[in-house]
């Protein structure tokens, strides 16, 4: 089985290297095809491992080589394929394979085609390291690796100012969070003496609760950055500057879920500190509704989907925080499928509309883009959680968890958010595909994407539909390592009322969205309507003024401070010192170069002066040696 582990892990790296060979060349299809096929190989290997684990096989644990061994510190490059990591591997390799093949079509006309595949495969490799590592150090390498690849891919169109800005924003936000994560890892090592998951978690129950709390907090800070939780969430919406396949893979399905994975992986730690768990759950519920409200009014389809991702991540954290780790992981998996599908559909729409993102300028696209419409509607239904699609099983489960654990506020918030989710999802569906053709007046001639792009989205669509049916098998598998608490509402009547009530609520939201946004009266908003001038709309439209707040109260003061430090400290102290030393050396040279006038007479004079100086020194030292006893007597007399 080790062989399959290595194949699954290293095939994307080989693909990335291969595409990198063509990095600076013009587009060659092979640079996209080879990494895609290698990812398919990786998917096959992961599936073999999944079958092995499902069949009750042993956990595959390998130690590839020693990485660091100094004193008491021993960190190997170790990889583990257990029930949790194999789930993540399946999600990562499956979605990446689909996205890779899709991107062959999507990036068809892009100059950076080869470079794109190199980055994308490198991302998959980093992500696999992240999920497969058997210790915190390896996790951190993967963590930074995906951060780097995310930076490269958000800023993929680096000639665009906004893209580079968004890339840097994402990178810097993550850097802030990674510091917290690093402190958490240091604390783990400091207190348990090891970074291996198994040993570290085994040693944790013996630690005092305060230490554990700090470890939990700092590790969660890292997770907050990567999973874009409040208050580090602003980068995710801006990250939509990247190409759409990137948004689908990195900013919906895989990388942003790394934070959830970390919490799930550290479940033994968080089980010891339920207060932090409750905080995580509350923050998750808050982010769920917070992001969903921003999605209600946004006029950029990719941003709406990004906020929806943020909101769903909130759900995952709510579940993980309440101790329902397997539920969180299940929603992570289901969400990866339908959200990637939704993003790829949005990519088709963008292509058809020549990168137009405002759904108000579309309308009626369903006539020309039937395939995309069906796939996106399917994904939205799954996201909204309608029976029997994936979202119903995973999201309703989270609601049940909150209900059964008597966290009724969290339950209420999440339930309300479910309605909002359905509303904003179908708001964009209705605006894009139904109603009047508002785009013809703007001179667009939409066309459907390549047929193969629709076909490769197929597997995701199938999974978005049937993922719920896998729940039982999945539960059997992961509860081997995760706490296998089952969540059942005690009375059957309450259960049915809850389920059917939720379904009705969601359906009502969908109906309302269709009714409101399919009507013929929809005009392209021009900022004059009463709604657009209301305070609530402005608040949501400006993302609660949080980016503005960051700009005004963090970025600008920091910039001022930097300028002061630059002008006062750097220029006047640091630079002045260095320049001073250089100036002395330079000045001495400038002054003494007169000696080298080339005039023999002058040079002879210097020579004589030098000789006299040396002779004098020789005489002084000679005398000093000769009379050393007397000199010492005099010096000791002076008390030296």
């Amino acid at each position: 089985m080790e062989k399959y582990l290595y194949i699954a892990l290293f095939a994307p790296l080989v693909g990335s290297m291969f595409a990198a060979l063509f990095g600076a060349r013009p587009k060659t299809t092979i640079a996209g095809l080879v990494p895609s096929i290698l990812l398919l190989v990786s998917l096959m290997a992961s599936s073999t491992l999944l079958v092995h684990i499902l069949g009750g096989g042993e956990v595959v644990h390998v130690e590839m080589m020693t990485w660091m061994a100094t004193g008491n510190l021993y960190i190997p490059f170790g990889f583990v394929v257990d029930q949790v990591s194999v789930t993540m591997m399946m999600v990562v390799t499956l979605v990446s394979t689909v996205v890779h093949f899709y991107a062959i079509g999507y990036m068809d006309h892009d100059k950076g085609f080869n470079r794109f595949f190199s980055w994308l495969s490198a991302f998959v490799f980093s992500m696999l390291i992240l999920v497969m590592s058997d210790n915190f150090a390896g996790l951190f390498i993967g963590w930074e690796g995906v951060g780097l690849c995310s930076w490269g891919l958000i800023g993929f169109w680096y000639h665009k100012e906004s893209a580079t800005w968004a890339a840097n924003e994402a990178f810097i936000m993550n850097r802030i969070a990674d510091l917290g994560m690093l402190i958490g890892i240091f604390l783990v090592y400091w207190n348990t003496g090891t970074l291996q998951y198994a040993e570290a978690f085994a040693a944790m129950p013996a630690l005092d609760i305060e230490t554990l709390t700090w470890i939990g907090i700092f590790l969660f800070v890292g997770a907050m950055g990567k999973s874009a939780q409040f208050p580090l969430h602003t980068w995710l919406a801006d990250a939509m500057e990247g190409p759409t396949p990137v948004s689908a893979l990195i900013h919906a399905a895989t990388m942003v879920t790394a934070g959830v994975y970390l919490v799930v992986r550290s479940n033994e730690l968080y089980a010891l500190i339920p207060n932090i768990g409750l905080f995580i759950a509350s923050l998750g519920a808050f982010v769920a509704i917070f992001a969903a409200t921003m999605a209600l009014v946004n006029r950029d389809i990719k941003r709406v989907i990004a906020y929806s991702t943020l909101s769903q991540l909130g759900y995952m954290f709510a579940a993980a925080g309440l101790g329902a780790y397997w539920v969180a992981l299940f929603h992570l998996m289901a969400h990866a499928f339908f959200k990637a599908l939704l993003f790829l559909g949005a990519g088709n729409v963008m292509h058809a509309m020549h990168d137009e993102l405002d759904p108000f300028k579309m309308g009626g696209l369903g006539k020309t883009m039937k395939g995309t419409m069906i796939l996106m509607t399917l994904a939205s239904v799954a996201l909204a959680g309608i029976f029997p699609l994936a979202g119903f099983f995973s999201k309703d489960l989270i609601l049940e968890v909150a209900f059964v654990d008597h966290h009724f506020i969290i339950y209420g918030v999440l339930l309300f958010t479910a309605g909002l989710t359905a509303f904003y999802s179908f708001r964009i569906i209705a605006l894009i595909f139904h109603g009047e053709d508002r785009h013809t007046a703007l001179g667009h001639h939409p066309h459907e994407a390549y047929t193969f792009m629709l076909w490769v989205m197929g597997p995701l669509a199938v999974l978005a539909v049937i993922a719920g049916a896998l729940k039982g098998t999945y539960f059997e598998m992961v509860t081997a390592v995760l706490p296998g608490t089952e969540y059942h509402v005690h009375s059957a009547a309450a259960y049915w009322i809850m389920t059917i009530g939720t379904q009705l609520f969601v359906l009502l939201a969908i109906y309302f969205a269709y009714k409101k946004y399919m009507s013929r009266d929809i005009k392209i908003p021009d900022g004059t309507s009463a709604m657009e001038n209301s305070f609530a709309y402005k608040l949501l439209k400006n993302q609660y003024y949080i980016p503005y707040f960051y700009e005004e109260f963090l970025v600008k003061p920091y910039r001022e401070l930097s300028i002061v430090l630059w002008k006062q400290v750097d220029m006047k102290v640091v630079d002045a010192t260095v320049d001073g030393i250089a100036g002395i050396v330079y000045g001495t040279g400038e002054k003494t170069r007169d000696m080298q006038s080339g005039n023999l007479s002058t040079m002879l004079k210097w020579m004589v002066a030098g000789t006299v100086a040396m002779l004098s020194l020789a005489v002084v030292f000679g005398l000093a040696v000769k009379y050393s006893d007397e000199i010492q007597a005099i010096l000791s007399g002076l008390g030296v």
Partner: protein
Amino acid sequence: MMEIGLNHYLVLSTILFSIGLVGVMRRKNLLLLFFATEILLNSVNIAFAAISHFYGDLTGQMFAFFVIAIAASEVAVGLGLLIVWHKRHGNIDLDTLSTMKG
């Protein structure tokens, strides 16, 4: 009448050396510079010979002979170069020899 001893020779040698040193520093004429170096070398020769006689050891006098021989060859080469320089530039002024400027 005072007997002439080692010190007198050494004083003479020092005086000659100083004269030579001043000549090396002050003279602008290349020919006179050679004269000055000859004075330097010969002042050293006097010191060698005197000290050799004082200790009754011939090594110093042998050294003086070597100095004379090498000084002679040095002057031969030097004068040769000097004549070539004079042919080319029409003077032997030290201040014009400044092509080795740094």
